[in-house]
């Protein structure tokens, strides 16, 4: 499953030409980017993700342009003459206002910050710990592996939403705690995959070669084996980001994540539910952005997996070979 199985396709080149010349010095990463560039779904998802990132980064600018902050409750300006919230498209309020007269567009932009920070940070922490623990378990094996694998099994069989809300209820909800809780329940997913891969990699000849050259265990694990595991780890990490985003939104929706009045997409929806089905625009915009973000990350993850998967490479290779045969 590692990238080293990606074979050059130019093996039947004319005998007088040196075969090496036909092989361009492309790194696996370059190959992946090349394939992603031809994948329209992947390109669209990247654009969507970049737009949402831009919205999060420039949330302050959006607030400045519209003139209302994310927590400004403006019963005078943000509501109509009878005190009702403004519908989308009202002058100055592109997506309307909520029941407290707060600008929904500005709140969504600030909510994007929370979602992205939680998604990326929780995934990063989970990936680092998952890789380290998985590598140690798979490389050393023995009793260390038994203990670490058992721990990961136990974490994976936790009723984790339940446990997350218990944790949050004891320590009080805060952003760092939310991130740590999500990371804790995600690391085992990565750890288990890395462990399985490390188990098979450590039997390979290159590891034996490294040993005979006098390389230490740490060096073999992190310099020799780790690069071969990058592909599955990248795919899993990309797919963990939307899971973490949903997790945070769910906690916030239950009132156990980001504390109001700080806006997050989850607590905006919880606020909307709190006032009954007063107005459709309280719901539809946070829902739309949340769904768009998770969908974009999931699509990108799938595309990256296809681009990294050697089995797909065979399809690519077959197609190229066919073109070559037809051209000849």
């Amino acid at each position, binding site marked *: 499953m590692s990238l080293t199985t990606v074979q050059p396709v130019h093996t039947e080149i004319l005998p007088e030409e040196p075969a090496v010349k036909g092989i361009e010095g492309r790194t696996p990463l370059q190959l992946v980017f090349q394939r992603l560039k031809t994948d329209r779904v992947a390109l669209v998802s990247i654009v969507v993700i970049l737009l949402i990132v831009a919205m999060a980064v420039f949330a302050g600018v959006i607030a400045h342009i519209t003139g209302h902050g994310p927590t400004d409750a403006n019963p005078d300006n943000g509501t109509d003459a009878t005190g009702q919230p403004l519908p989308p498209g009202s002058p100055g309020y592109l997506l309307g206002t909520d029941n407290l007269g707060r600008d929904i567009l500005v709140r969504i932009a600030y909510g994007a910050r929370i979602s992205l920070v939680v998604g990326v940070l929780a995934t990063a922490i989970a990936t680092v710990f998952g890789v380290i623990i998985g590598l140690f378990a798979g490389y050393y094996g023995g009793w260390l592996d038994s203990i670490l694998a058992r721990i990961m*099994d136990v974490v994976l069989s936790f*009723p984790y939403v339940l446990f997350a809300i218990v*944790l949050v209820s*004891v320590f009080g909800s805060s952003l760092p705690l939310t991130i740590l809780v999500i990371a804790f329940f995600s690391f085992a997913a990565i750890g288990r995959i890395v462990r399985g891969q490390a188990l098979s990699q450590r039997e390979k000849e290159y590891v034996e070669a490294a040993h005979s050259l006098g390389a230490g265990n740490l060096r073999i694990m992190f310099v020799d084996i780790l690069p071969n595991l990058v592909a599955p780890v990248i795919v899993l990490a990309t797919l963990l980001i939307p899971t973490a985003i949903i997790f945070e939104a769910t906690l916030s929706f239950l009132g156990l994540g980001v504390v109001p009045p700080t806006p997050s997409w989850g607590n905006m929806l919880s606020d909307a539910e709190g006032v009954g089905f007063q107005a459709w625009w309280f719901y539809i915009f946070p*829902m739309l952005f949340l769904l768009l973000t998770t*969908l974009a990350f999931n699509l990108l993850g799938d595309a990256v997996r296809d681009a990294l998967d050697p089995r797909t490479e065979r399809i690519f290779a077959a197609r190229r070979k066919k073109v070559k045969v037809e051209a000849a």
Partner: protein
Amino acid sequence: MIRFLIRRIVLGVLTLWVIITLVFILYYAAPHDPAASLAGRAATPALLQQINREYGFNLPIIVQYWHYLERMVPWPGLFNLGTSNTNRLPVTTIIAQAVPIDISLAVGSAILWMLLGVSVGVLAARRPRSLLDRGATAFVLTGISMPTFILGLLLLYVFYYVLTIHGIAIFPKPGSWTPFTRNPLEWAHDLILPWVTLALITAATYSRLTRSSLLETLGEDYIRTARAKGLSERRVVYRHALRSSLTPILTQFGIDLATVMGGAIITESIFGLPGLGLTVVQAIQVQNLPVVIGIVLVASFFVVAANIAVDALYAVLDPRVRVS
């Protein structure tokens, strides 16, 4: 086989022990005063002292832990989950009242998600790369990306609120619940929207699993043999291939079923169903520790038991598992 089962059960008990210990650490060793949360706002020092004496909160932590563990042993005379801080009912009674709702939720939605998930997966696998397959992929990705509370709110908005204000009150308002034994039709009617919510979210995973598992099986030699014998495609797919592709689906199914039985927190909160999920959320909000601990224990027990059951079934279906 017996050794395999014993090992799995030991691991399951170990998992439960880790979980209840973590809950203990969180609630008893964490820097906060359990007596104060029990006494409520009108706490006097005398009352606090009395509570501390009665519940043993002033004993050394290790002694408290021992008493706590003792109460968790499922043995008559020992097992005691305590009483609720708010209404003084035994926690076991509260759980017994909530569990039928979760079983109802789990059974109905599981039937729906299996039917939907597996059939979409089979359709997609029979014609890979077709328009149908792309449609199935879109369904799967939307399902995986969809947070449960968004789907629940959407269904509630469209099928309850919009229809009701237009005078077509087909679906019951949130909070409706009729026990199956009282009126099965009313029971199903009250649960349709929660069932659909859970089923649509969960079915996506099953479609993906079925598709990939069936595609892999269809590439095997014995399928080629079956086709070469001149069997109809229908027979090849349903009788020969699907059967052996169902093993990974079974694993997933056991765990998902148990998770829903231990409380579908979001779905119950949105549709106001007083099952374990809603009960635990309400208990957490008022720091009602005995109820929280009881429900965490029950939910974890379901998941752990399902893991063991699935592993055992797996070993029966696939002899290779038993050896390793």
